[in-house]
């Protein structure tokens, strides 16, 4: 993402809030198919998402914007009818949250970048728990991993004086 394409901090935070809202809803669906440790972890992660939602709401309000409201209903990416699909849904939701916080990293000032990066870490760890495996680039679409070199030299000014 080039600087010109980078979203504003407010819109990136709104996207993260929307992802947290979707996760809160989705964990409610997934939790119905979890038992034992899985159910306890679902509740713990659901609570973490609610806390993150409250944090984002406060941050967006502090920027004099109105936090996006959660949807009344979310389309699930696939049918959830057992523990395996419930875990897959939870991993899918966490992937979305991770990607949303990477958006905050691209949009924010230094403090906001660190906030987004740490939140992305938490979501990636939760996704790895549900998936049972780790990933090399959590939250980044494969297409973004193309060759995108940085400028090798410091800015040099050319011009006629």
């Amino acid at each position, binding site marked *: 993402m080039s600087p010109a394409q980078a979203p504003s901090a407010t819109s990136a935070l709104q996207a993260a809030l929307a992802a947290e809202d979707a996760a809160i809803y989705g964990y409610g669906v997934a939790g119905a198919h979890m038992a034992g440790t899985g159910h306890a972890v679902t509740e713990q992660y659901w609570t973490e998402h609610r806390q993150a939602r409250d944090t984002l709401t406060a941050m967006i309000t502090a920027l004099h914007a109105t936090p996006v409201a959660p949807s009344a209903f979310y389309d699930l990416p696939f049918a959830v009818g057992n523990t395996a699909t419930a875990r897959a849904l939870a991993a899918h939701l966490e992937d979305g949250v991770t990607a949303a916080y990477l958006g905050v990293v691209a949009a924010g000032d230094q403090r906001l970048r660190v906030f987004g990066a740490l939140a992305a870490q938490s979501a990636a760890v939760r996704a790895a728990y549900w998936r049972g495996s780790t990933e090399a680039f959590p939250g980044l679409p494969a297409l973004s991993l193309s060759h995108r070199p940085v*400028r*090798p030299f410091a800015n040099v000014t050319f011009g006629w004086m």
Partner: protein
Amino acid sequence: MFAGPDPLGSAPPLAHDTVVLEAAIAAEQRLIALYKSVLAGSRTQRGGDGTVLSSLLAQHQRHLAELKSRLVIPPGVSAPASGSPTSGPSASGPSASGPSASGPSPGAGGASPITQLRVAERASAATLVRQLATVEPALAQLFASIAASDATHVTALASVGG
């Protein structure tokens, strides 16, 4: 009168992102070396532990490949030598400082190899988060994603016998 770089002069200074990127590459190379050292150990070379470690190592090698793909080494400027902790102009700079730049070396201290890996992974994630605050957005996102991957490795290593 033309104002600009002297074409016959020395190369202009490296951009900040390039310096930070070189430090990240060097740190990733050290992490890979640590994994290879642990994998070479007899206790974890066999069985499921070795499989987990090999998987994590493969992900670090993907990190390294992606980081290197972002780096353009201009003619006349030396690239960081592979696996060298002190190579490159950034190794002694402020952006190279931090836990991952001076993280545990293979076999160092009394900690178990798996503990050393966990410490190194945690340090790598923390260093990348510090570094991403000052680089351009796309590189910051890559650093954040790699840091997130490192954080998941810390958890994955908890399941590996040390």
